[in-house]
């Protein structure tokens, strides 16, 4: 079945779907800018930082709280990409879109699990004059919540991969299925960071934070590209408009 027949939507819906695809890279861009402005990147706080260093970071000024707020907005906007992926998968799967539903639920949970920790960081920076131990606690909560809830995202990757590699109606390119399997793999070992307060497996190190950040960013770009590529260049013209209905 041709792409034009599978995604048979009116021009306004096509524009919205295109926007959903673009919000993959846009969300990552906004998040990156926010984290850099806040000073959380490129040298994030680690579990081995002292209480004074943690308090000093969150007392850094308005740019810290506002940078984190912007980053949380960027990650929240990732929900648009999830919606776009959901629509394309639903059209691919047809009558029984179970994998699409798994992707929708797990993708939504993942967005929440990424957004809330950054908001907790922003709250920590909102009133940094509290007892230092409380700020350290909030910092631990936010970073560990940011890194370790891997199950929903891995389930999302696997559901996308199975849908792409098994469905007869290929709306996403086949390589994107294997790519999702790899992205899921790069998150499998992140939970070990609970066991390390220093060394190469601490939450702020290359194999944990940076590998996950890189693979998630690549995923957002690749899935955004996949959604955009799934939209046919021309509408089939068979959709029903309000004028036709009236």
């Amino acid at each position: 079945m041709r792409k034009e027949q599978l995604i048979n939507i009116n021009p306004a819906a096509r524009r919205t779907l295109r926007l959903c695809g673009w919000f993959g890279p846009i969300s990552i861009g906004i998040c990156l800018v926010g984290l850099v402005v806040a000073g959380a990147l490129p040298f994030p706080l680690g579990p081995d930082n002292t209480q004074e260093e943690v308090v000093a970071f969150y007392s850094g000024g308005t740019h810290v709280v506002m940078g984190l707020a912007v980053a949380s907005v960027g990650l929240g906007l990732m929900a648009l990409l999830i919606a776009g992926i959901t629509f394309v998968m639903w059209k691919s799967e047809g009558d029984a879109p179970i994998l699409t539903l798994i992707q929708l639920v797990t993708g939504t949970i993942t967005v929440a699990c990424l957004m809330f920790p950054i908001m907790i960081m922003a709250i920590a920076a909102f009133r940094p004059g509290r007892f230092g131990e409380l700020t350290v606690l909030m910092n631990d909560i936010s970073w560990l919540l940011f890194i370790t809830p891997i199950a929903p995202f891995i389930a999302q990757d696997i559901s996308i991969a199975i849908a792409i590699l098994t469905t007869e109606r290929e709306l996403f390119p086949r390589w994107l299925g294997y790519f999702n399997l790899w992205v899921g793999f790069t998150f499998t070992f992140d939970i070990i960071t609970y066991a390390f307060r220093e060394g190469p497996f601490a939450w702020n190190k290359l194999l944990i934070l940076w590998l996950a950040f890189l693979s998630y960013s690549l995923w957002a770009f690749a899935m955004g590209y996949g959604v955009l590529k799934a939209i046919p260049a021309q509408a089939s013209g068979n959709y029903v408009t309000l004028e036709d209905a009236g």
Partner: protein
Amino acid sequence: MTSFAQNSRDKGALNDKPDWGMWLFILLDMTTFGLFFAVFLWEMSNHRDSFNADAAHLMIPLGLINTLVLLTSSYAVVLAVHAGKARDTGSAARHLRLALGAAGLFFTIKMTEYTLEVRGGHTLTSSPFFSFYFILTGIHLLHICIGTILLSNWRNDVIRGKKVAERWMESVAAYWHMVDLLWLVIYSLVYIGSNA
């Protein structure tokens, strides 16, 4: 919903071109392991003495047996692919059973090794070397488990007399050889290199 293998097989019957997406996955997966190996070597260069001392506690003969077991399984998978292409289902099923048996043996030996190491006081957080040991071999074991599922799926299709696409057989075989190759690097670096 039809199974992953069946759909891949059906699509493969229509299109038996190489599955470039699978090669992309293998490249990315090996790059990720390469990153782990690079960090391992960096840490080893900074803690040479402690890495040497800890590596002396590893059971090199068990690692060597597992190396031979995996090499045997890889050879069996090669023979299964050849048998599959020649439509010799009996031979394909036999060789896949051998490969699966080897995977099971590898898993059993690895779990025995973990048990002995933990009883010896070596755990995930006991030292930088043993952190790498458990994490590297752990994620490799995860790959073994995934490969076992893929090989079982392939063998089930062969036993049921279903036509298995060459593209599917070659993709599973390529994955299994990657798992084998990664083990050779892990054995060389963690068991032998750290002990040298």
